[in-house]
């Protein structure tokens, strides 16, 4: 796929997402699944339409619980680690453009929520997810807080850094010898979780402090993903979600580690497979199934990241994870 081929598809898919506005926007009620909302707001950030989407970001902030987290829906009072981190991440990133004090306040509250809920060994827990999943999201949120959140003051940033290190160490200590991460209950094949965790771990060395020496294990994780790709270009038995996860992750990791030559054929094959299995509007969970709106947001995100990956400026892709101001 070339950027020229992808751009019109981005526009048509984005237009489709807008037609589904009432099904995902937090401005239209508190019953929406906030994970879907966060997926959609990520598209708005990467589509660079945050300035004209102020109300969506403010509405998400307004649905924050008193403890600083978010529940599965805007109306749910019980905060959940995974969804709260995704919401906090979208708010801090959206506020890079908006610079609203109210949203900054929401992000600070979210930071406190994660500082309060971390376990002594560095992990976070959420009964809906593996501990590695649940830890991955707050670590990712803190990655971005440390890079972008200059306004939060020395004391808070110091606490975030300490917490982030503990979370990161928990992740790194859980990596298997083959470079993958596994959870026997949730992720026996390790594909999706490895795709998530190599992109989180990578930041430890490259962006913040050169103390954890994760380049080599991350490279090993990327090589494991390469070895698990099917000949058709997909991962995990034609799993659209996991193929998008792996393709996106390899874009970032290959750029940051300078291993594009090794990874690019897999990225191109992944992109080709993803585009071949798009429905007329949106993406399904597996080829031939009905369109899933969350997967459609993932598809748009993958295409937008691919455009950044295709640019000569190797730093550009990092902005699509919030790892660069």
């Amino acid at each position, binding site marked *: 796929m070339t950027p020229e081929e992808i751009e019109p598809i981005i526009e048509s898919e984005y237009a489709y997402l807008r037609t589904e506005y009432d099904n995902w926007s937090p401005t239209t009620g508190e019953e929406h699944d906030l994970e879907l909302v966060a997926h959609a707001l990520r598209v708005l950030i990467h589509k660079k339409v945050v300035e004209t989407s102020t109300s969506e970001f403010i509405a998400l902030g307004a649905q924050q619980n008193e403890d600083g987290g978010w529940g599965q829906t805007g109306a749910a009072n019980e905060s959940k680690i995974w969804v709260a981190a995704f919401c906090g991440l979208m708010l801090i990133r959206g506020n890079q453009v908006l610079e609203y004090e109210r949203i900054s306040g929401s992000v600070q509250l979210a930071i406190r929520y994660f500082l309060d809920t971390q376990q002594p060994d560095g992990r976070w827990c959420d009964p*809906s*997810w593996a501990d590695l999943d649940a830890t991955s999201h707050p670590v990712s949120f803190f990655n971005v807080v440390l890079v972008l959140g200059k306004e939060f003051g020395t004391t808070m940033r110091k606490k975030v850094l300490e917490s982030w290190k503990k979370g990161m160490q928990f992740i790194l200590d859980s990596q298997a010898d083959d470079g993958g991460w596994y*959870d026997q209950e*949730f*992720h*026996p094949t390790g594909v999706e979780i490895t795709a998530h965790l190599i992109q989180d771990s990578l930041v430890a060395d490259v962006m913040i402090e050169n103390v954890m020496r994760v380049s080599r294990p991350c490279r090993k994780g990327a090589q494991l993903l390469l070895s698990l790709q099917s000949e058709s270009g997909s991962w*995990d*038995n034609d799993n659209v979600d996991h193929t998008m996860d792996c393709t996106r992750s390899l874009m970032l990791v290959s750029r940051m580690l300078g291993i594009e030559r090794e990874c690019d054929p897999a990225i191109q094959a992944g992109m080709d497979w993803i585009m071949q299995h798009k429905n007329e509007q949106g993406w399904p*969970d*597996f080829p031939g199934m009905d369109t899933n709106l969350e997967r459609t947001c993932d598809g748009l995100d993958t295409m937008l990241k691919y455009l950044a990956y295709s640019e000569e400026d190797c730093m550009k892709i990092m902005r699509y994870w919030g790892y660069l101001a």
Partner: protein
Amino acid sequence: MSESPDAAASQPVVLADADDIQEGGRKEVVVENRKIAIFNVDGQCYAVNAICPHRGGPLIRGTLDGYRLRCPIHGWAFDIRTGDSNGRPHDLEIFPLRCENGRLVAEV
């Protein structure tokens, strides 16, 4: 993959012919806009809600290890005989089946 079964307007509902799902096989049917996945394990058929209660993953594409069905999206696993999710926040809805004149019938 989905098919419309010979669903009656009132309960109980015929989901499929028993011969349609051989041992080790599976089939998804739609009854009044509800997707139901049927699995044949060791010659016995089990019907469950085809939509994972976690994030809506398509359980018809899940992996089966004995009676344990794992969602292909985020890995929640369920006992297809009971719906038990092994400690996750939601169990899986099941539809006890009976065979009547070679057809699989459930209360849906």
